[in-house]
């Protein structure tokens, strides 16, 4: 029997390189693919893609596997960046990683892999795929199912997540043991596709600054100015350069009037919600269900109890949840299985 071929997305980071190594050790014929999603340099910001690409290729060379570069820039801009900008324009807080997984990695990339002869497709995500079900990774802290809840069952059936049973420290150790230079690479932060860039700086490239007032909700006083209400997220603490005193949190925004409201009161009513209405609700199994479940309101947030009502879109939390923004995803679980999720409307 000939070897099964698996295409693995190599990003140049430690996770995907160890994923490739593990697949090779497991006896697969491995092909590494770098997805070129973004190569534009923004003013004063360095996009690290060239370095990432070189690192990805180094891994392929180290493992003596084939290496391909697929240019998805145009589609990526249309499906992910544009979507993100449009959502921000509407005053929402979208999650580009969720859309990237849905549209690029587990659709465009996936289909392209199959077209090019892949039996399976793999990525370096911390998650598990079992019989078409998406399970949380063993390393709860690294679990990335929050970003993956919009993928389809048919895709999962042919997807391998080699890191699902590993902890990050083990992955790094494996990289070191296999002499993969990615072992000690600094993890990227900021906007996923651009590199070490704060979302607000990135948005600043696309939206003109529109100066407006920052108003203390409790006193009604103007306590500062901002460059655009769109740039602020509910519950956000950082980046409100108001100086001194108690920290301020964004409690509300008026996009039309370009006003940002803040509060020093962590328990401020407007920041806490008992229930939300979801849109774009997606169930991986294809069979919507309602009732009690555990949910995660953001990546790495603790699991909390909630009930999805029979209408399939109203989610009622057991206890109030803080700082929920529209555009943000909420992901449903039962046990270790990721059922799906939806977007706060």
């Amino acid at each position, binding site marked *: 029997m000939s070897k099964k071929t698996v295409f693995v997305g190599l990003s140049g980071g430690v996770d995907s390189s160890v994923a490739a190594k593990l697949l090779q050790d497991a006896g697969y014929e491995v092909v590494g693919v770098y997805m070129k999603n973004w*190569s534009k340099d923004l003013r004063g910001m360095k996009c690290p893609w*060239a*370095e990432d*690409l*070189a690192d990805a*290729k*180094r891994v*392929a*060379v*180290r493992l*003596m596997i*084939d*290496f391909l570069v697929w240019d998805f820039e145009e589609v990526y801009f249309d499906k992910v960046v544009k979507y993100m900008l449009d959502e921000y324009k509407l005053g929402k807080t979208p999650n580009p990683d969720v859309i990237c997984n849905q549209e690029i990695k587990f659709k465009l990339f996936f289909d392209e892999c199959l077209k090019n002869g892949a039996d399976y497709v793999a990525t370096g995500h911390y998650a598990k795929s079992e019989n078409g079900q998406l399970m949380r990774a063993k390393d709860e802290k690294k679990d990335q199912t929050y970003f993956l809840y919009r993928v389809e069952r048919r895709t999962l059936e042919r997807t391998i997540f080699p890191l699902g049973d590993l902890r990050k420290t083990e992955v790094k150790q494996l990289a070191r043991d296999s002499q993969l230079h990615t072992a000690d690479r600094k993890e990227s932060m900021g906007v996923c596709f651009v590199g070490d860039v704060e979302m607000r700086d990135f948005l600043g490239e696309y939206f003109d600054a529109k100066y407006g007032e920052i108003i203390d909700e409790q006193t009604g006083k103007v306590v500062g100015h901002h460059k655009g209400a769109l740039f602020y997220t509910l519950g956000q603490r950082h980046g409100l350069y108001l100086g001194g005193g108690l920290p301020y949190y964004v409690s509300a925004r008026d996009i039309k009037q370009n006003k940002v409201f803040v509060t020093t009161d962590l328990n401020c009513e407007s920041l806490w919600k008992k229930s939300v209405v979801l849109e774009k609700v997606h169930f991986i199994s294809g069979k919507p269900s309602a009732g009690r479940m555990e949910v995660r309101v953001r990546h790495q947030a603790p699991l909390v109890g909630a009930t999805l009502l029979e209408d399939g879109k109203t989610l009622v939390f057991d206890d109030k949840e803080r700082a929920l923004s529209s555009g943000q995803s909420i992901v449903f679980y039962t046990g270790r299985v990721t059922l799906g999720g939806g977007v706060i409307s």
Partner: protein
Amino acid sequence: MIYLDHAAATPISKRALRAMEPYFAEKFFNPSSPYFPAVEVRREYEAAKNTIGGCIGVKGSTLVMTAGATESVNLAFQGFASCLVSEIEHSAVLETARSLPMCEFVRVQANGMIDVEDLATKITEETELVSVGLVNNETGMIQPLKEIAEVVQAERMRRSKCQSSTPLFLHSDASQGLTLLKINAAKLGVDLLTLNAGKVYGPKQVGALYVRHGAILKPVVRGGGQEAGLRSGTENVAGVVGFATALSETAARVDGERKRLTKLKQLLIRELSKNFRVAPLKSHPEIGLIGDEKKQLASFVPLTVLGLDAERLVFMLEERGVLVSTGAACAASKGARSHVLTAMGLSAEAIAGSLRMTLGKLSDEQNVVAAARILTEVIQLERQRLERKK
């Protein structure tokens, strides 16, 4: 580690490093200050400039010290409206040239030499600056600067006859080549010459622009008026002293080093020939030699491994401790194909397989033989991998 990329960077000479040291702490003074210790530093700075000038047959006062060759090039182009440059120039020249209102490009021949006839036809009445690098940084081809200078001189004569007041200058970027060629700026016939300390075993971010008497330039960096007003900013005394030490050391050894490296280059090619057909590209070899050896700087061994991806080879070599550069579409160069090899008309396959190995001080018989052995090994491994797939 076997370092075969002397065209990219050179390790600083020990003497140069030692010579620089006092200027960071004990002799930290600003050369423009009035008191004696500072005056002394100024004198030492001027002496260093004279040493650098001496290596190319000019006075120190004709040199504008800069923070590297790129800045020198930018200064050389400043204020001109129309230029003519070769299409194989380093990006420092190409990008600066493109920033001028008018810019024309001279063709290169298949052997990597500039087409001087094409240059002659492309000089127009408006051309103010012609710029051709002395040694191409990818192929090592030594360009016919004297012939070019004659063409430029002929145009100057023509202009003076018809009483045209448009000036015409010749600039050459001599970043590459100073380690193996004896250069006399006056004999070369250039008005402006860019020098680079980082390529001659001196410190990086130190360079100079030779400005022939009478050539009038505009500053890029303005301020206190140092370097005859052409490059303001407190003098980089340590850097210039390091440059002077390194360059004079290098210049004294030009002939011997050229002979030594010529032998090493032949050895490298011979060693590779044990396993592969190594020959000029046109004779369909397995490893193609790029350029024309007769007019190539001895330190350059640019070649192409046909059918293979040079960047993979670079990474495989790197794993085995051999550091070389690629002329191919490489990730580090943002996927852009070498404009030099493209202009020379190399096929996509030849460009994809192109490696640039450049010899220098760190090269000797032993490591050249080892490099050839390791390169042979990785080529064979890559071929086996591709074979297995079929």
